[in-house]
């Protein structure tokens, strides 16, 4: 990210402030995370700081985490993807129909990824070439994908058959005490980080989100890039579908309900601007971990789900207020 290349010219002016804000925000997020850890240590000393609890927090975060990586790209690129939860549900259902299951676990995984990417491409095509507003195009996909998932599964929960238990083993097999799906989550985060920070694709994403017109004048094919961003988000939903299948041993049209809100909230808390052009993967992941940690703490302490929602709402507001202040301070 340090060396400005010719390709990154348009994005270059914005970069210093992105990095600055990013680091500032990360400090704040790490502080919030540390605070939650302290709360956990004080309230449930015997349960919280155990290795197995840490592992279950990461396993819980993995599914939405993968989706959040895709959502970060879309939002930095100036768009929004409301269809993530529904697309994940559709991919999980499609990959667990008896017909798909007859081809074995590898085809099931490929099917989930293809369905996710396909839905993402449709979103992207409608937005980039069909000139639909992202909110509307992905809202339409949310409704339609959920409906298709229900139709395909006949509103039933589709169990993964015993002969395809390789999928479930992603959740039950552990390396060094950590389930495979956490490694997949980590891999997606690392790949996402590289893609955003070390490639032309990433620079173009910032450029397209920051100022599409300038990006276009600089020779970036903005429409094609926009379409690819949604396809990437769909791809992440496909991967997330594999993870949710592994965790729940099922595909279901009810999977991923309101994931879009959790993913968007995590991205916003992480310091990414909804208007595009700024944001980081690490911020989004920290935002997500804060949310997951809250859920975990509430359940460990036997507290009410409703209070948990209130806490999450407050955190979103506080995060955005802080973010705005930081931006003002940094403005020349």
């Amino acid at each position, binding site marked *: 990210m340090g060396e400005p290349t010719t390709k990154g010219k348009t994005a270059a002016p914005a970069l210093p402030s992105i990095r600055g804000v990013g680091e500032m925000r990360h400090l704040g997020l790490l502080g919030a995370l540390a605070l939650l850890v302290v709360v956990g240590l004080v309230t449930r000393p015997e349960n919280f700081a155990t290795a197995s*609890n840490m592992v279950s927090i990461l396993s819980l975060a993995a599914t939405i985490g993968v989706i959040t990586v895709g959502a970060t790209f879309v939002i930095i690129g100036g768009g929004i993807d409301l269809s993530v939860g529904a697309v994940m549900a559709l991919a999980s259902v*499609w990959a667990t129909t008896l017909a798909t299951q007859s081809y074995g676990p590898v085809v099931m995984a490929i099917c989930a990824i293809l369905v996710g990417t*396909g839905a993402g491409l449709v979103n992207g095509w409608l937005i980039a070439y069909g000139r639909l507003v992202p909110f509307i195009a992905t809202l339409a996909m949310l409704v339609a994908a959920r409906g298709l998932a229900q139709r*395909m599964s006949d509103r039933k929960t589709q169990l993964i058959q015993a002969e395809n238990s390789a999928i*479930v083993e992603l959740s039950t097999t552990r390396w060094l005490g950590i389930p495979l799906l956490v490694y997949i989550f980590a891999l997606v985060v690392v790949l996402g980080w590289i893609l955003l920070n070390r490639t032309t694709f990433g620079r173009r994403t910032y450029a397209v989100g920051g100022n599409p017109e300038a990006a276009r004048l600089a020779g970036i094919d903005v429409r094609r890039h926009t379409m690819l961003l949604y396809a990437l988000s769909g791809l992440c939903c496909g991967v997330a579908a594999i993870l949710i299948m592994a965790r729940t041993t099922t595909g279901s049209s009810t999977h*991923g309900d309101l994931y879009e809100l959790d993913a968007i909230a995590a991205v916003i808390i992480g310091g990414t601007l909804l208007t595009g052009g700024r944001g980081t993967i690490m911020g989004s992941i920290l935002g997500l971990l804060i949310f997951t940690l809250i859920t975990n703490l509430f359940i460990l302490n036997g507290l009410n789900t409703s209070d948990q929602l209130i806490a999450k709402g407050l955190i979103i507001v506080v995060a955005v207020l802080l973010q705005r202040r930081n931006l003002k301070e940094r403005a020349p």
Partner: protein
Amino acid sequence: MSDNVARRGFLVGGLGGAALLAAGCTSNEPAAAPTSAAPAPAPAASGNDQPGTKVTIGFSAPAADHGWIAAIAKNAEATAKQYTDVDFRPVEPTNDINQQISAVESLIAAKVNALVILPNDGQQLNQVALQATAAGIPVINLDRIFPDKLAYRTWIGGDNYGMGVAAGHFIGKQLKDKGVADPVIVEIQGIATLPLTQDRSKGFADALKTYGFSVTAKQDAKFTVETGNQVATSLLQAHKKIDALWNHDDDQGVGVLAAIKEANRTEFVMVGGAGSLNAMKEIQSGTSVLKATVTYSPTMASSAIKLARLIAQGKGMSDLVENQVPQSITLASETITKENVEKYLALGFES
């Protein structure tokens, strides 16, 4: 320009390829078709099943994406088809109150002989049920009750409090037999704000109290596999040793069981709720922590159709003395264990 065409080609090719690859994978026809016959475990030993006056029965239910409600619609239809004298008239299932009201209105206008309604919300559909009754159409209220007794002829439904009681007794007895003192009892609810959930929890607590036990911790999921999995994952962390766990709903139970297997926990007894086929198979296997499930059976829809037919034809229930069908029927919540699961398998619904 050529670049543009190539790109388009890529797009079409990509989409087409994905569609082709995936198109073969949408089928859900099982290798061995499950028996789709309507549950008819206890054939009436009277002339009531003989064809009578031809009647038209209207049916309206929510479209919730949940195995239980799917089973409700399927059971109703299958039972209606068993009778040559029943013209079954279902309306498009919907989760929208407004749409369900107009659907019921259309059935009233069609002058059906009886209406079976599982309302999205009893309170909100009360008015239209009153209209039906005023138009001389007997309303058979399925499960979610209308607050106004004038609105329906007969109510048939499950016993949420009784479910809790059944689960509480099973767990209480198991723990007492084992001689566990001060047991850790965990409860995973459905949607906590619903009255039915609160009834279930109250029944559970009341039954446990008779053994001197109480619930250690409870958390709500949302009746889905995924939420069940999430809640169970954290609850298992919060309680390193559990003696018994009651999960209100077998649909979300699939997720709960996945979490238990992942955590490798076997030290406790788990009881389910509703009575899905999956749960019954787990119980039958004998190797699962799931030892029992307490029913809240969607077979009630079959019974509701039978009642509607009897009422429309002016018949009573042959085993009872009275000439007319009773005003309300509360189904008992039955406890399914390894010992009696055989008898229930045919009634299990696919979640």
